[in-house]
């Protein structure tokens, strides 16, 4: 049996981290969390996750800063990133994709939709 895929979830809302954690664990993913930008970059470097779920509004360096760092590290530059933010997609969708994100969802998102995109990016149907 292959080890479960590991997902790094970055959000400053502890309640949401818990909700996402419950959902991901139920779907058979391994996961780590980070509550701010600095910790997010450190966790990405240390844990080498298979995918990153990233909020934009973060203390200690916002989501764009994290994206930039993650994409510049050789170990994580190929890791897919899904941005999950409350911000207006009219403004941030393109901006996030240009910064290297692979998908953008505005909160709240139905878990089915989010999981489908996670699976697509991880390459299993």
């Amino acid at each position, binding site marked *: 049996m292959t080890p479960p895929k590991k997902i790094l979830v970055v959000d400053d809302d502890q*309640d949401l981290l818990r909700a996402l954690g419950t959902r991901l664990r*139920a779907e058979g993913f391994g996961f780590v969390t980070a509550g701010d930008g600095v910790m997010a970059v450190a966790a990405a470097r240390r844990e080498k996750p298979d995918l990153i779920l990233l909020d934009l509004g973060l203390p200690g360096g916002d989501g764009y800063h994290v994206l930039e760092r993650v994409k510049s590290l050789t170990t994580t530059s190929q890791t897919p990133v899904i941005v999950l933010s409350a911000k*207006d997609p009219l403004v941030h969708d*393109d901006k996030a994709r*240009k910064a290297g994100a692979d998908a953008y969802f*505005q*909160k*709240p*998102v139905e*878990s089915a939709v989010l999981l489908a995109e996670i699976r697509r990016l991880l390459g299993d149907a």
Partner: protein
Amino acid sequence: MSLAVTAVGALVLAGWVLDVTALVHVRPGFPAMNPLSAACFVFAGLAVWLLADGEGGRHARHGRAFAIAAAAIAALRLIGPAALGLPLEKLVFPVWSERQGWGAMSPGSATAMILIGTGLAIMDWRRVRASAWGQIPLLAAMAPAVLSLGLYLFGAPIESRWPFLRPMAIHTAPTIVALVCASLLIRPRSGVVAVATGDTVGSTMFRFMLPVVVAVPVALGWLHLIGQGRHLYGASQGAALVATVTMMMLVTGLWLVAHGVSRAEGAKRRVELALAESQMRLDMVLRSVGVGVWNWDIVPDRVTYDDTVAEYWQAERGAAIGIREVIDHLHPEDRRRAIGAVRRALREGIEYSTSYRVLRPDGSHRVLGARGYVTRDAQGQPMRLTGVNWDMTLQHDAEEARHHAQLQELELKDQFISHVSHELRSPLTVVYSFVEILLDGLAGEINEQQREFLQIAQRNATQLRQMIEDLLEVTRAQTGKLVVNPCRMAVGQEIEATLEGLRPQASAKRVSLAADLPEHLPAVLADPSRVRQILVNLIDNAVKFTPEDGSIQVTACLAGAEEALLISVQDTGPGIPETERDDIFRQLYQLDCAAPVTRKGLGLGLFICRELVTRLGGRIWVDSTPGQGSRFSFTLPLYSPAAAIVPLLTPENVARGEYRLIRVAFRPSTTRSWAERDDAVVVAAVEVIRNCALPDLDRVLPRLGQDANQESVCVLTCAGTDHADALAHRIEGQLSRSEALQSSRLAWIIQALELDLGIASGDDPDALAVALSSSIEAALDEMELRRDAA
């Protein structure tokens, strides 16, 4: 008259040849007209006729040659005896000179002919200036002729000791007078004659006095002779009488002239005074309201202006400038519009009205209102532009500041609402996520009642999310950020898809949901995601208001006379009272009477629908019978490149008759399918292509919309192959430099196609546009076929 002179000369010559006394002498015993004089008349008459022709060039040259010939003959006659040893006549006409009554050409006639010939010869020489000098010898030529007439009138003896007092032949003298008059009338408006023919006070006086001045001396001479004949007085007394009467007459004439001039002068002075007074009043009014006047004389290109205008433009007072310098001082952004307004007035109107900003040398600016009138000449050509300027800077700046403040206020509100909505979304997401987790049993089994309650909580969380979304849309509408991206789309598919999405909600209420769509619906020009938003709003409302076991039907058909598609959503709800049918489209409006308890919302949905439909170029309204239901209808414009093409079909472009279509097809370069955000990239690409097109020759057609794996943008061009190739090249270059396309994963292919119009559709732009537009559709279809076959 000139030909009559020639005829007299010719008749006299004939008289000499045939020896007819009546022609040569008029009366036996009178002096004969010398054949040389007759020949001079023939030449001079022809000369006047040719010069008067007015064609210039060859005619004038021939005329001058005839005039010189006449003068030469007369000159040879005068110098003949000294230079040739014999009078000229004896040499030329030895036979006739033996005849009885033969007389040499009189020196008076010869002098007159020399003067006339010279005058005519220089008449058209260097045109205007010489014609003035040419008239002087002509006038001098009158003197010998008039003297001869006087001699005949007062019965003077034919022979005289002094050759100049020997009269000319009796028909020579009037013929010379006629010849001189005809010559003077060749250029009646220039030189000395202009005074006699003009319409000034002086000319009128001259014409009035001329008969008096001619008649008085003649009458006096005649009276003097009669008096002397009857021995009433002696020679010296007669001379004294003539002198006195002449003096009195001349003084009277002089007084009349002076009186006339004084009266004219007085009238002129009164007019000038009145003019100066009205000018002063006008100046006072203009200055007090701050209006300046300027003038542009178009042909010499001279702009003049008053002090007020000079102050507005900070121009040097009273300087002579051309229109170019005026344009240079206009704000670059306003130049096109201002020049356009003036051009239009010059081309087809007489009046224009505009406003523009003026950049002053010291760096400040003024906003000026401008109004102008075109004065045209008799041919309708614009001659002069007279305009006024007034200062609008204060109003303009105040307006600008107000607008700016309003925008700022809206911007703040926008920021506030996006901030609030962001803050609301985060806790909502947590609520939503945990409800989902509970419903999915991730936290343990739940019973039926718990499931029902959780579903209610989930439904309300979804509604809350929709309200936040609506709030944002309204703010976007107010700040002008509500964007629509119209392209060619099929409404039928969108309706079916929307109904499918809302069916669970409707079945929960046992409300039937059906669409009634005709087989072939024409494509519309609209934004697919926005059309879906409108449909969801309307159908969602209908579901909410329709009681259980009701029905909702969506229909689409062509809207009567409009070039539009009509889409209606009919429900069997409570209906809407007539008084409120307009209000429901307003912001925050909710029906209070019939609202069911389950109804929740901010009342923004219909307002957003109206904003969207209006931005897409349609209308939205509601028909309702209270108690029986409501029917919400909206229209969307049909997709038709024809309307976009018409402005391109100017007469010049139609005359060229070469239409080409450039198609730029965009496809994703990876294997993934189209995503919503590719739309933004295509919009950016259309903007790039639009910037490559030349406004007079090319037109970017409305977007064709996305099919499974591509979208085309088409440009129609009117200037032949070379131009189309250059345009394609330009587009390729600009697209590969575009940042938006670089960061996307879109690839593109550019093709140029010749358009076959079939049978030419004439010059009617509308018919031509329709033909072109179906030709474009055909070309695109063919391209699709080829691609599918490949």
